[in-house]
């Protein structure tokens, strides 16, 4: 073992130099990929972390999983977009103090020549009906995310049960789904923010249907219930919620632009 000794010494020195332990308080937040991928969190978190001498650990997953992490008590706060699921999360006693934060909207993107002719549809549900009738390729998130929930809601409103070779269930995040739709020349439902980040260089798909009331996409923030999970950092979570929904947070959100365009909108008081 003599020859291995220098190796172990090197290892020990390297390992002790870089400590994994963290001194400051950490707030765990699960959120959707859209808040992270849009770049919003990079500007929204630092002022709060500085003021409270803490770190906000962001776990970015689909809304369904983000809420599940809250239900297991693995995070302190959730920041998601699926109003019905959020209300259920609170009603079931997992979360408290749900607050509206911001909104954007969903759009249906697809090939510029719009093979299913959905641009003339009056509602999003009608647009999906046209896609199904034409059996035009449609890529679904298929991952129980907020966007997927919205899509299922729209299919239901359209009275269609999407099935068949034209309906692709990707089981992936928004970005990969836009890439997949681009490669397969299909339609997909996306939030406007992620699409804006992709349009041009990364996708040549265009917005073919937008602006209907049914495509409204509100985001909410919820503290995980400390009565259910005594270990959660409730006080810090509430401080964070107050910050995000207070004047400072809202100013950052409404002023944030990606690729020159606003991504999220705040409610007028």
């Amino acid at each position: 073992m003599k020859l291995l000794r220098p190796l172990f010494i090197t290892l020990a020195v390297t390992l002790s130099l870089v400590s994994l332990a963290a001194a400051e308080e950490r707030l765990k937040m699960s959120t959707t990929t859209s808040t992270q991928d849009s770049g919003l969190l990079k500007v929204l978190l630092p002022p709060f972390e500085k003021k409270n001498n803490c770190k906000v650990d962001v776990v970015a997953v689909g809304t369904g999983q983000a809420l599940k992490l809250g239900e297991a008590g693995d995070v302190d706060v959730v920041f998601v977009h699926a109003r019905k699921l959020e209300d259920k999360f609170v009603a079931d006693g997992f979360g408290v103090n749900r607050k509206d934060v911001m909104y954007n909207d969903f759009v249906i993107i697809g090939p510029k020549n719009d093979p299913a002719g959905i641009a003339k549809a009056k509602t999003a549900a009608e647009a999906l009906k046209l896609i199904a009738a034409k059996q035009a390729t449609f890529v679904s998130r298929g991952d129980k995310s907020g966007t997927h929930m919205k899509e299922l809601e729209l299919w239901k409103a359209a009275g269609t049960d999407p099935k068949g070779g034209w309906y692709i269930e990707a089981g992936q995040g928004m970005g990969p789904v836009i890439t997949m739709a681009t490669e397969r020349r299909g339609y997909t439902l996306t939030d406007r923010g992620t699409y804006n980040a992709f349009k041009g260089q990364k996708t040549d798909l265009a917005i073919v249907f937008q602006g209907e009331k049914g495509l409204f996409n509100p985001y909410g923030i919820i503290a995980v219930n400390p009565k259910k999970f005594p270990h959660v950092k409730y006080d810090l979570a509430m401080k964070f919620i107050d910050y995000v929904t207070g004047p400072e947070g809202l100013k950052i959100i409404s002023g944030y632009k990606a690729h020159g365009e606003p991504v999220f909108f705040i409610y007028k008081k």
Partner: protein
Amino acid sequence: MDFFSESLKTALELITSRDPDVVSAVTVSVVVSLWSTLFASLAGVPAGVAVAVTEFTGKRAVVTLLNTLMALPTVVVGLFVYSLISRQGPLGGFGILFTPWAMVVGQTLLAIPIVANLTMSAIKGADPRIVPTALTLGAGPFESIRRLVVEMRFGIMAAVIAGFGRVIAEVGVAMMLGGNIRGYTRTMTTAIAMETGKGEFALGLALGLILMTVALMINMALNALQQR
């Protein structure tokens, strides 16, 4: 678009500008992998030696089990550890899910079978006369086995290096147990997965090139130690 040349350019830019996100991802990758390799070696090397030098009933079953465990998918290890350390799991009270330590636990489990298996093969490949000779020369059983291990140090080092290779390259455990938290549990591989998801293929490939460079440097360092 020429992804490859663009990613080469991006990689160089990221390295020369010491991009803080990249520095942090490299650090987390290396530190977590080194810890995991260390723990996996502490468990795997003695286990491999023990299985190689002793005869017992069911030995073949143990060897088959070790071989099978080498094929463990990273997401399965991730899920298994997740179920233990989530707040709902039996070890939830420690609260280590989504910390670097969670990744260390998962990657250690991932590397142990490889280290143990390759150690076992190395020892089995040793000259069968080493232990009897040492015993004849008056060494005790422990001393004889120590001699055997020293003799086979290159093979054992190779086992450790293979374990390191597996953990620094894997993404399933790091993503599931670490959570890809920026500046905390984001490793090179989870960063690559994330950038790919965002459609930043060139950036993802650039990070891949940096990861390969880091792995090359570490392996060169280990190799230098091995040659001494």
